[in-house]
């Protein structure tokens, strides 16, 4: 009997032990977890970040904000993604991180309400809860502060200005959105329509809003239909990564961008919101001159700073509180304890290589 147990247990023991050593990660501390008792972290604040899902470059960029500022703020940073992106998969991760002795949990929640009970239990243990990038909309009382990417009310005006400057504030334009029931998209489109009523943009005419459902195929078809239906179209705004990338593909194939072979009256200008990695090729080829997005690293930096301050009770999570982050500028805790971390970044041929997400 003994022999049998040995045969079977040894390889499994070895596997577990090997994989364990390989993946234990403590990003700012150099020692592996096993030899770091929670008390020895000294004056450093232990912050854990829980993204929505694993292996997502967007969250990797957000984490880079934590990592780059860890020494400056005195943070021992770690991160742990849930194995799936479903509504409850972050529950066990929150519990595990609290058990590890993390002092601050920064979370990009997968659900606005399924985590309420778990977050309250962690708070009761003294863990500071901060949401980042996404919020517990309607359940804000279950976290102390929500750090969001940028002021969404600026997106409509900024996007219209970006396109306007590229087409000389004149001509027919269209919008390629995600789905017709996406709240953010609709708020941004509303902002664009309102901006277009400004006399500055009076010669820009919005001819159609189409929806690509955030599917590459549907976005491609919708873009092609736009081009056929409106032969005088001068510009398209696609405030969604999938749509922008798909539309860029269409423009590139049909060679319709300014300066390309089939460009008519100055060419068709495409802009919108998207991640640099998805648009790198189009920007370098000249199909897309400029587009925008916020930099998720800003969220990481602000959340990290707030974590240290809230933990040390140097800052109160109260509406109206103003604070200064060295090297980042001044911030304010707004309605529902929301802090806006940054502004839209305009990506061009010149700066796009500095971003990897």
């Amino acid at each position, binding site marked *: *009997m003994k*022999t*049998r*147990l040995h*045969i*079977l*247990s040894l*390889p*499994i*023991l070895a*596997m*577990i*032990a090997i*994989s*364990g050593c*390989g*993946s*234990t*990660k*403590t990003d700012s501390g150099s020692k592996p*977890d*096993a030899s770091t*008792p*929670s008390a020895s972290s000294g004056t450093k604040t232990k912050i854990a970040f829980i993204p929505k*899902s*694993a*292996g997502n470059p967007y969250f990797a960029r957000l984490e880079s904000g934590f990592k780059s500022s860890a020494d400056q703020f005195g943070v021992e940073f*770690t991160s*742990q*993604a*849930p*194995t*799936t992106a*479903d*509504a*409850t998969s972050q*529950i*066990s*991760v929150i*519990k*595990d991180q609290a*058990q*590890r*002795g993390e002092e601050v949990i920064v979370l990009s929640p997968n*659900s*606005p*309400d*399924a985590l*309420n*009970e778990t977050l309250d239990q962690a708070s009761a243990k003294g863990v500071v809860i901060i949401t980042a990038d996404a919020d517990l909309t309607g359940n804000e009382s279950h976290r102390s502060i929500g750090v969001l990417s940028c002021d969404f009310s600026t997106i409509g005006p900024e996007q219209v200005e970006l396109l306007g400057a590229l087409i000389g504030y004149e001509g027919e334009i269209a919008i390629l959105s995600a789905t017709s029931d996406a709240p953010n998209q609709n708020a941004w489109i509303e902002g664009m329509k309102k901006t277009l009523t400004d006399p500055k943009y009076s010669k820009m005419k919005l001819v159609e809003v189409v929806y690509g459902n955030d599917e590459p195929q549907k976005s491609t078809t919708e873009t092609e239909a736009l081009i056929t239906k409106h032969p005088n179209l001068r510009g398209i705004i696609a405030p969604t990564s999938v749509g922008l990338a798909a539309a860029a593909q269409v423009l590139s194939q049909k060679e319709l961008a300014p300066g390309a072979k089939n460009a008519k009256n100055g060419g068709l200008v495409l802009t919108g919101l998207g991640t640099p990695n998805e648009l790198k090729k189009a920007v370098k080829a000249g199909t897309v001159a400029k587009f925008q997005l916020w930099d998720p690293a800003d969220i990481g930096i602000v959340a990290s700073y707030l974590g240290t301050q809230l933990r040390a009770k140097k800052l109160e999570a109260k509406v109206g509180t103003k604070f200064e982050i060295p090297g980042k500028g001044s911030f304010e805790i707004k309605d529902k304890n929301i802090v806006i971390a940054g502004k839209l970044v305009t990506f061009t041929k010149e700066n796009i290589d500095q971003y990897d997400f």
Partner: protein
Amino acid sequence: MRRNILPGLLIVLVAVIGNRLSPNFLDFAYLRDSATLVAELGLIAVGMNFIITSGNIDLSVGSNMVLTACITAKFMVGGMPAPLALLLGVGIGTLLGWLNGVLITYFRAPSFLITVATMAMYRGAAKALLGPQSVKAPSGIVGIDTQTFAGLTIPLLILLVTASIGAFVMQKTIFGSWVVAVGSNSRTALYSGVPVARVVRTSYTLTGFICGIAAMLMLSRLGLARHDLAMGSELDIITIVVVGGTAIQGGAANVIGSLLAFILIALLRSVMGVANFTAEYQMTIIGILLIGMVLANRLPLKLILQKLRPKSQRAP
């Protein structure tokens, strides 16, 4: 019993490794609460044992649990007294399980196909019912997972009791031996007078009943219901059953093994959680465990033992 030595040993092993990897691991309250988070899966695994042993599969269990929780929450919000709604919830789960059994036996269709269909159907119905919204459960029924008795949380106690009853039914009753017979060879079973269709239907109904109980536990634990809960849980449940030593092709049950596998997997997840293994590693290790256990259950152990024994001890 012998088949349960390996998972039992692995539990000890994982605990020892966990203790070495993180000083925060061996904390009874933490381990208990972590296991409670997945108690519903262990519970459904008891029912799944009967289905798999009878040579079938049920991929709709997670969707059943979610739809049942959604309907029940809706009734509670509509003003139905909580005890009545809870009973009704268990009834709905039972009904959804029974429907699987009826469709499979009536159409003589592969259970895989039927339950893939009902998996989509039940979850679709939950989404149609609630849309993207959550329905909050009345505060009176919330928090069963934090109540303890004899040191264990109520969901874990329910799991222990259910697994014990399940093991008894499987090993000591005529129904249990029918399930094994149907899974071994359904034709032979039919000719020997086993009511095959009824056995299959009963297995699904039983699992539905357990899904109903699990749904009520989930509702109480989360304090709400929404359509996208417990995504992919059917595969976690099947993993528990197979790691526990029940043969995926049917004909060999091990309910207690499933209970041990549940403890093993819950413990393993906690170790990986406190030691901060990345999500990718966690999934890989669970996968390795699954394959390792399947292989271990197939090894010709007697032969290997005989070869390894010193010559003097070998049987002539």
